[in-house]
């Protein structure tokens, strides 16, 4: 499926250090992502994958280090998507309403992207159900649909395939490769096989 927008940003991390509470999780971390590149972050529980992603998303303060975009994205440009362990879904609203809200919030209400997202993750029969009643995997698929519905150069995904069945996992892999084909970048923390080849791998944690 041809995606209209294409990106050509690079994302650079220098000397990044992250701590939680009194625990120092990682330091002196350098990353370089070019258009179309994907980084798989692995490591045992508590290694600091989520912490890293949240720092990269600007949701957590880093102890040291700097992030740098080249070129600097415009103010109103959606720089990144952060998908954490939670789905950020409003149970009372229907799937369609959630998706539409995300688009409006990002200032990118594009019907085609909406339709593409819904069909990519087989949400069409579920669009009108209140999200509360959806199954775990269905909720996760809705959360993933955000990535397709709103184009953004950088995806930060924390165990995206949680609760997904085989079919949906493949759909996700396909979405990622479309994204990369369009010059997008992705950093994905996972414990499972992602179903595609990342350009780089980062293994965190002492035990690793």
């Amino acid at each position, binding site marked *: 499926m041809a995606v209209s927008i294409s990106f*050509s940003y690079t994302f650079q991390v220098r000397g*990044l250090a992250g*701590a939680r*509470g*009194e*625990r*120092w*999780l990682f*330091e002196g971390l350098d990353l370089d992502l070019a258009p179309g590149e994907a980084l798989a972050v692995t490591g045992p529980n508590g290694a600091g994958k989520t912490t890293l992603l949240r*720092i990269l998303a*600007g949701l*957590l*303060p*880093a*102890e*040291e*280090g*700097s*992030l*740098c*975009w*080249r*070129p*600097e994205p415009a103010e109103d440009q959606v720089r990144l998507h952060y998908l954490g362990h939670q789905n950020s879904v409003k149970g009372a609203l229907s799937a369609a309403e959630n998706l539409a809200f995300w688009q409006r919030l990002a200032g990118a209400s594009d019907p085609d992207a909406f339709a593409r997202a819904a069909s990519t993750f087989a949400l069409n029969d579920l669009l009108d159900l209140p999200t509360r009643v959806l199954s775990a995997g269905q909720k996760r698929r809705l959360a993933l649909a955000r990535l397709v519905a709103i184009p953004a150069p950088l995806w930060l995904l924390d165990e995206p395939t949680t609760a997904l069945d085989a079919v949906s996992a493949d759909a996700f892999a396909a979405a990622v490769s479309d994204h990369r084909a369009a010059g997008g970048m992705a950093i994905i923390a996972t414990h499972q096989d992602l179903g595609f080849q990342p350009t780089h791998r980062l293994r965190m944690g*002492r035990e690793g």
Partner: protein
Amino acid sequence: MTASTPSSEQPVPGVRGSALHRFANPARFLRLARAVQPWLLAVTLVSLLAGLYFGLVASPIDYQQKDTVRIMYVHVPAAWMAMFGYSTLAIASAVGLIWKHPLADLAGKAAAPIGAGFTIIALATGSLWGKPTWGTWWVWDARLTSVVVLLFLYLGYIALWNAFEQPQRGAKAAAVLALVGIVNLPIIKFSVDWWNTLHQPASISRIGTPAIDPAMLTPLLLMAVAYLGLFLLLLLLRMRVELAERRVAALQLSRSRAGESR
């Protein structure tokens, strides 16, 4: 695409804010504190003794209030310090939020309980004074109420500091509250003019010549100096304690850091 510019290099949000445990070395501050403290102590003690002497012994009694007027020497400076303490809090918070200077956050944290203390003193002495003069311990007029609000702002500030896992989060949240709470200061100050209340209008701190007998003014000012000295003294002490605790935390962190370096 435009060539990369160093200007597009930006620090991660909150990096310096999060440096709370191991911040820009406070050595200069500590040196200063140690140097100033003895002098502060001296000034405080001297002015306190002098103030008490003039206030309780060598000052005339009010022709209608008799000796109860002497409460003034405890009450008024306490009330002033209550407001001064909050101003300190607000300024420290502003500095902490804008320039992310960790020392400012600490100053705020250290100042809050002291200011709250003075507020309580003002309230207590005030109502003690109210009984003989107004014939009641307490009335709900604007001045008194706004001072109660001040007390609750202090309490809220302290509560926020302790309400979060990460100290820096508590610091920032409390700082925002402190800044918002500034609106209460003018209310306290001018409540006596805006609403007709039982409480004294400004007679000393008003613009122009104070409408009060110098024999009363002297001890009052002496006591004010003493209170101020006491405030600063406690502030420095508490800040030094805080710093010591931070240092311990820093040591723990660096140890865990050493433990994890691979």
